[in-house]
């Protein structure tokens, strides 16, 4: 057999294939840096949409940030929002299209800094949407400046001596805030650095999407992520740094899993 002429199909022996590219993941070369978490999460989103069979009713909203081009990679209809406004855009889509499924995909600068108001209010209204929140503790796209989630002491382009409370304030645990909001039903923090965590993250994304489809209010999945270019570390080192520094401050696990708040608890009598 001429090995130069082997096709992919010849190489993959039926019965031995355990993993393949989801149909909804388009065959475009991703612009993400090697080791970046965005690509893995994109894949999970594509897999979940495919498995739930909801491509025809899904509209994604991508942010300003490294994932601005998410629309080039997943074969669904997309709207590209301005910086931070994805939750408002998603609200607009969802409100006039209650039959559709809408999710946002946002970074930490986008969601927790410039878009803090929009995410709070969308979650507080309990919009029937899902939110994927990539927390890499940095502004990846603009070259590694401080994000609201940047850890104390963390070196970035705008905190060259490390983040300092006097000058920069505290790292923002926005997911903990979101979990307090009565409009959210499911708030979780995940990661994608090992095959186990990837599988867990996928389960979380699926639950969030199902909740939105079931009109259970807002579901929110934070993914603690790496940005090896922004952090100036190799992918392996970045994963280690994340485990040692991010996980203690941003512990992985569910913060809330249930239903939106009972309005009776918020009525005048109480």
């Amino acid at each position: 057999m001429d090995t130069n002429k082997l096709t992919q199909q010849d190489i993959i022996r039926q019965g031995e294939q355990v993993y393949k590219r989801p149909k909804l993941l388009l065959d475009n070369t991703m612009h993400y840096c090697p080791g970046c978490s965005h690509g893995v999460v994109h894949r999970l989103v594509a897999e979940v949409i495919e498995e739930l069979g909801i491509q025809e009713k899904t509209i994604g909203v991508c942010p300003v940030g490294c994932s601005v081009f998410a629309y080039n990679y997943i074969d669904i209809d997309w709207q590209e929002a301005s910086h931070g406004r994805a939750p408002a855009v998603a609200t607009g889509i969802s409100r006039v299209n209650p039959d559709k499924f809408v999710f946002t995909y946002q970074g930490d600068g986008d969601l927790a800094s410039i878009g803090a108001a929009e995410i709070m209010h969308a979650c507080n209204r309990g919009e029937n949407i899902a939110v994927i929140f990539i927390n890499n503790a940095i502004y990846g796209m603009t070259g590694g400046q401080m994000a609201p989630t940047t850890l104390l002491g963390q070196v970035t382009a705008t905190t060259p001596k490390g983040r300092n409370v006097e000058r920069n304030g505290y790292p923002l645990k926005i997911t903990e805030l979101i979990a307090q909001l009565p409009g959210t039903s499911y708030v979780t923090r995940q990661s994608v650095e090992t095959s186990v965590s990837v599988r867990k993250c996928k389960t979380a994304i699926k639950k969030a999407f199902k909740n939105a489809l079931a009109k259970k209010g807002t579901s929110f999945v934070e993914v603690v992520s790496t940005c090896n270019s922004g952090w100036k570390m190799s992918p392996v080192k970045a994963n280690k740094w994340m485990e040692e520094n991010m996980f203690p401050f941003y512990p992985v696990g569910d913060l809330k899993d249930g239903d939106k708040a009972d309005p009776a608890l918020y009525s005048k009598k109480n």
Partner: protein
Amino acid sequence: MGELKLMKGNEAIAEAAIRCGCDGYFGYPITPQSEVMETLMVRAPWDKTGMVVLQAESEVAAINMLYGGGGTGKKVMTSSSSPGVSLMSEGISYIAGAEIPCVIVNVQRGGPGLGTIQPSQADYFQATKGGGNGDYNLLVLAPNSVQEMSDFVGLSFELAFKYRNPVMILSDGAIGQMMEKVTLSDYKPRLTNEEIEKKYGDWATIGKKGNRSHNILTSLELNSEQMEENNIRFQAKYKKMKEEEVRYEEYMCDDADYILVAFGSCARICMKSIEMARAKGIKLGLLRPITLFPFPKKPIAELCKRVKGFMTVEMNAGQMIEDVKLSVFDSGILKPVEYYGRMGGIIPSPEEVVSTLEKKLIGGK
């Protein structure tokens, strides 16, 4: 014939939205236009037509809700007043860049900054020359009556979808607050999802079905060559608007020696000024631009052939005068163009208009 009612300009906007089959209104309270959302909330159209009305957390959010809803081919609108429209300007630029149809009402108040809640036309530049970043234009309609507040809502949606472009109704606090009788339009049903798919399925983000490639709405294009092409396409669209959508009204221009150019509530005042001037033997007429973009250049060029001069009357420091001067210049027949206006929420009186005309145009130079 439709129903006849006495109502405020702001109420007419709300009523017209429900009747023209609007799918969603998103807004944030600000004087002097809060009655728009208040009227909608009382009318509760969600029970009758299915129209959604949502009080957003800010104008920033409201305009982005329009981006989202309009991006799915639904008829969505907002209303605000000057400071609120400034906040929306980022979103409006993105909407123009992503070519999303929607309707924005600005019931102007005096500025800059928080300014005053009294009427003004000081957002003329913002509305007609951009406001947000980049080379884009809104199609801008200027109502001068409660009737036009009502009529222009449906018209704005037609134009917004025809051009896939945001349309602005540039009104002011006087028209928003004043009560007049208005003939309401008949109820038009909202489009069904099937109708939307058929009409706008080639661009609207309504869920990818079948073999079509996925629809993406974005204003981003990092390839300069492609971005320039997008800009060229936008400019072609604005050119088409200039050719096909100019709307204006002439009042007593046939025998006029002098022409007032005014829009919105100023045009109403000018009609009184014309009556007063004509009583004195001054042959005065009015050109009222109804579309501020595209601006009625040709009618001004025509008038240049036979009148002695123009004076704009504006509730600002003299903004539209620049477009009148350009129109006169481009006509090749140079005629004097003067301005009279008041600022800060003051409405010019008909007497002031006539005396300024006499001083600056008739008696002058």
